[in-house]
């Protein structure tokens, strides 16, 4: 007993000391964390606040009111822009999810030399500045649509969907790959041992396993598509102006409060959507840490 007491006495002070020292740096880091969140959310709060501006211009505050929201409901062009964005978002998310999931699964499960090259391609797609993509896609679409008479490429929605889907597919592929790579291949192997044919293995084992990642990828694709500004502003055609391009044109003439109002609405919608996905994932047994990691493709 004496030895135990003495060991405890011996070990007690270092532990207490450690905690004290920890608190000091922890305090600083906590403060820094809070500051960072304030920084990250500052413009969001401002936009939400200014969505209630009754002035004619967004930038000059004129009093509290719902005129921005009213103006949106009376502005068919703004409404159409939002609708175009939503449509494009859904379709782009669909394409990106399908293509990206297939690619991600292949990357995780079929190793080989091609993996390196493909990953390099994905990486290049992800980091290339949007302006470069935009100025390349525009003449390409024009050539495809007019010179080679593939009429579909003259359609604004088609152009938007394809353009948005490129970046999104890369993202989905990475997310799905990360998720699958973290899982044990043994599950699929045992299914094979139990005489399950490849297709059944895929639909009943692999797919359910990656479903959280697929969902997260789909959601992310949708959000990325909604956000896409530069490429959209270059390739859009009359009648198919997506929301960010509408805002961008307004930027060049006069910003109105309704832009903040719509942004607030879309922000709320995005939060709801993400909340739903998180809920679904939670139900599926993922911890919040896992969910966050899935969403960020790690």
């Amino acid at each position: 007993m004496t030895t135990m007491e003495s060991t405890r006495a011996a070990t007690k002070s270092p532990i207490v000391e450690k905690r004290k020292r920890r608190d000091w740096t922890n305090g600083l880091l906590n403060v820094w964390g809070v500051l960072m969140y304030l920084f990250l959310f500052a413009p969001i709060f401002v936009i939400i606040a200014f969505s209630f501006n009754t002035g004619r211009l967004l930038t000059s505050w004129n009093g509290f009111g719902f005129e921005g929201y009213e103006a949106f409901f009376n502005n068919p062009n703004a409404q159409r822009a939002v609708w175009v964005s939503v449509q494009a978002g859904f379709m782009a998310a669909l394409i990106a999810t399908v293509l990206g999931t297939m690619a991600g699964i292949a990357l995780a499960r079929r190793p080989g030399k091609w993996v390196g090259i493909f990953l390099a391609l994905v990486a290049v797609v992800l980091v290339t500045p949007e302006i470069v993509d935009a100025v390349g896609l525009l003449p390409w679409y024009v050539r495809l649509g007019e010179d080679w008479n593939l009429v579909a490429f003259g359609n604004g929605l088609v152009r938007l969907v394809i353009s948005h889907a490129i970046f999104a597919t890369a993202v989905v592929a990475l997310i799905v790959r990360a998720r699958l790579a973290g899982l044990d291949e043994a599950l699929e192997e045992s299914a094979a041992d139990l005489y399950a044919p490849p297709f059944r293995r895929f639909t009943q084992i692999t797919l359910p396993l990656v479903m959280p990642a697929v969902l997260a990828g789909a959601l992310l694709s949708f959000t990325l598509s909604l956000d896409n500004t530069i490429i959209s502003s270059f390739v859009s055609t009359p009648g198919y102006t997506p929301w960010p391009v509408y805002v961008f044109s307004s930027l060049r003439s006069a910003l109105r409060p309704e832009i903040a109002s719509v942004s607030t609405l879309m922000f709320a919608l995005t939060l709801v959507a993400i909340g739903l996905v998180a809920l679904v994932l939670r139900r599926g047994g993922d911890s919040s840490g896992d969910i966050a990691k899935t969403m960020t493709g790690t």
Partner: protein
Amino acid sequence: MAWPAGLFFIAFFLIPVAVIVVISFGYKPDIFSTYALGNWSFDNYRTAFDPVYAPTLTNTLRVALIGTFICLIIALPFSYWLAVRVNPRWRGLLLGLVLVPFWTNFLVRTIGWQLIISPNGFASDFMQNVGLIDQPLELLYTRGAVQLGVVYNYLPLMILPLFVAFDRLDPAMREASKDLGANRFKTFTQVSLPLAMPGIVAGMLLVFIPLMGDYITAEVLGGAKGNMLGQLVAVWFGSGQNWPVGSATAVLLMALILLTVGVFGALGLILRSILRARRRVEIVVKESA
């Protein structure tokens, strides 16, 4: 299985990039046409490289390098805190919270900053009331505003890889370091940081490369002085209606990015080998007599 995606990338990414390069050697036939192929020459590059545009180039490089650096400095303590110090129960939620602003529209976020830093805006009023400045805030439409804007917009791209890197750190490594007598600072710089290096490099690349091509932040917040190369490309394609010169400028942008990444990559490798050489521990096997 990956073929559809691969073909998709080739058709709508690689080919368009190739198209840019091809057009950059073309020409602009008349005032209202945008481009024509043929008449192959380097003329467009001559225009793109005109010394008149040099300030834009140096400005872009400067904003991108400083921006990446600032993002790194800011994100490092934050990601470390989030990955290592925060209670694991809250970690997921807090990480998600970081991403929430990221999910709102890029352009709208930047416009939010325009509202904040405008001479009649919050920051200005606050700073004047507190006495920090006695004139309205002169930040909007300066290079500083663009710097602020890009740091904000690309910060999540730095936070995430750093978070992942620190998250993957084995706590045992840090404990071992402490057991061997290293203080906290030494542990951080000689154990945590080197181990997190791949994440740091990833973060820097994810921020620097798109930042070089940034266009919206400069458009919203920069004025005459906050010119970036991305804007120049956009102007050539937009109101200038001169796609060949625009393509040449885009190629110039890509080349500049590759060059800078290459230079810094090489510097980094050289630095690493120097550090390794200095820290090499010689294991001398004592031969027992």
